[in-house]
């Protein structure tokens, strides 16, 4: 009932599709309070990841797939999202170890490790108007779901729901980290693009897990 390496690869491909479909939306969100490159950067990174998945030997374990995604995003994204999502995926890869399949608890633990990585890298706290505002409640929801015996798909779905809410909660906030922090008060009343992309990525993972074999 767990998530195999094929499941992880499918989730990453699904993420690439979602990021590409939402490229313009993310660019627009970032244009208002940032440097208008978030959507393009993520699209570039995930497109490069898909090419690697298409062209190279398929990764052997969930950890290897996550690591491939991490290194590809780090070297191709170009903006803050590269090191942040890259670190998140690297920590997740370390967290799952050499497991051939991830169970619900394993997925929740990987999400926790990813959050710790993002916080360590970006030094942001909840309330700073960053992806941490989406990822923090997502991890809490994933852990609660895993503890109550949910499946992998249910854990990811709970995480995605909480991330959506967390992203929405960034709208009134004044940014304290990232490019938007230079705007001060003017950053309020806008959705943070990083929290939005985090919510989109988690939703794509949830849908991929729910649609395929869990």
């Amino acid at each position, binding site marked *: 009932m767990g998530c195999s390496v094929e499941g992880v690869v499918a989730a990453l491909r699904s993420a690439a599709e979602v990021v590409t479909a939402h490229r313009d939306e993310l660019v627009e969100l970032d244009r208002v309070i940032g440097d208008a490159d978030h959507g393009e950067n993520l699209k570039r990174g995930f497109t490069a990841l898909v090419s690697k998945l298409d062209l190279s030997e398929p990764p052997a374990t969930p950890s290897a797939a996550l690591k491939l995604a991490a290194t590809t995003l780090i070297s191709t994204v170009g903006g803050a999202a590269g*090191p942040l999502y890259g670190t998140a995926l690297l920590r997740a890869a370390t967290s799952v170890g050499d497991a051939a399949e991830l169970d619900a608890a394993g997925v929740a633990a990987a999400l926790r490790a990813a959050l710790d990585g993002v916080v360590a890298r970006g030094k942001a706290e909840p309330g700073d108007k960053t992806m941490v505002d989406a990822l923090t409640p997502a991890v809490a929801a994933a852990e609660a779901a895993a503890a109550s015996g949910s499946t992998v798909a249910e854990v990811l779905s709970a995480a995605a729901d909480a991330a959506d809410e967390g992203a929405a909660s960034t709208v009134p906030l004044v940014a304290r980290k990232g490019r938007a922090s230079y705007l001060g008060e003017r950053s309020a009343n806008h959705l943070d693009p990083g929290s939005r992309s985090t919510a989109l990525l988690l939703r794509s993972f949830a849908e991929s897990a729910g649609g395929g074999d869990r």
Partner: protein
Amino acid sequence: MKVGLVIVSHSARLAEGVAELAAQMAPDVIVLPAGGMATGGLGTDYEAVSNALDRAESGAGVVLLYDLGSARMTAELAVESLGDPSRAYVVDAPLVEGAVAAAVAAQGDATLDGVAEAAAGAAREAFADAAETGAAETDSASAGAGDQEAGPVHTLQVTLTNEVGLHARPAALLARTLTGLTAEASVEVGDQRADARSVLGLMGLNARFGDQVVVTATGPDAEEALRRVKALVDRNFDE
């Protein structure tokens, strides 16, 4: 063998310009720009930073300076992926002043710690300047607003008994010994005065073996600051 520098910027031209400026002050130091994306746009390129980091390392370590947040993250990732991450520091400093201060320190054979401290010291100098300007402006308006209950002025008079006086390493040690203290401290030699937290400023005093040095401090931790400075001088700056 000198500490190398890498300038990490979102813009290739910015990185090149800063590297050019810093290198002018330090002909024997490797100062490498790592700016912009491989495709030519704005952004930070992990591969470019990693490559520059390798090429700037001649055995004495590397200091990386950055322009904006994500450049810092990319630089930190590149350092973490080194075989020995303790051989390179990502330093939070104003890019131009920090690069010049670091290059000068590296040219003077400062250690990796010393070069990093020189770059970081440039930040404190910049902030101190800004605070001074701010205080001068508020002086006429309202007297109390500018100074944060400075309190009594504590003074310490010492004679330098270490061989090289306030050269790069001792200056860096002196500046660093005040870390974490809430105190304003300055060092006077003859009629020259410098912020005790500014490595460049201290070096500029040209204080030598046998020179009389007056250290003054204000603020809640003033006494502790002087105690630490005295201990450092008494230890001959661990020479």
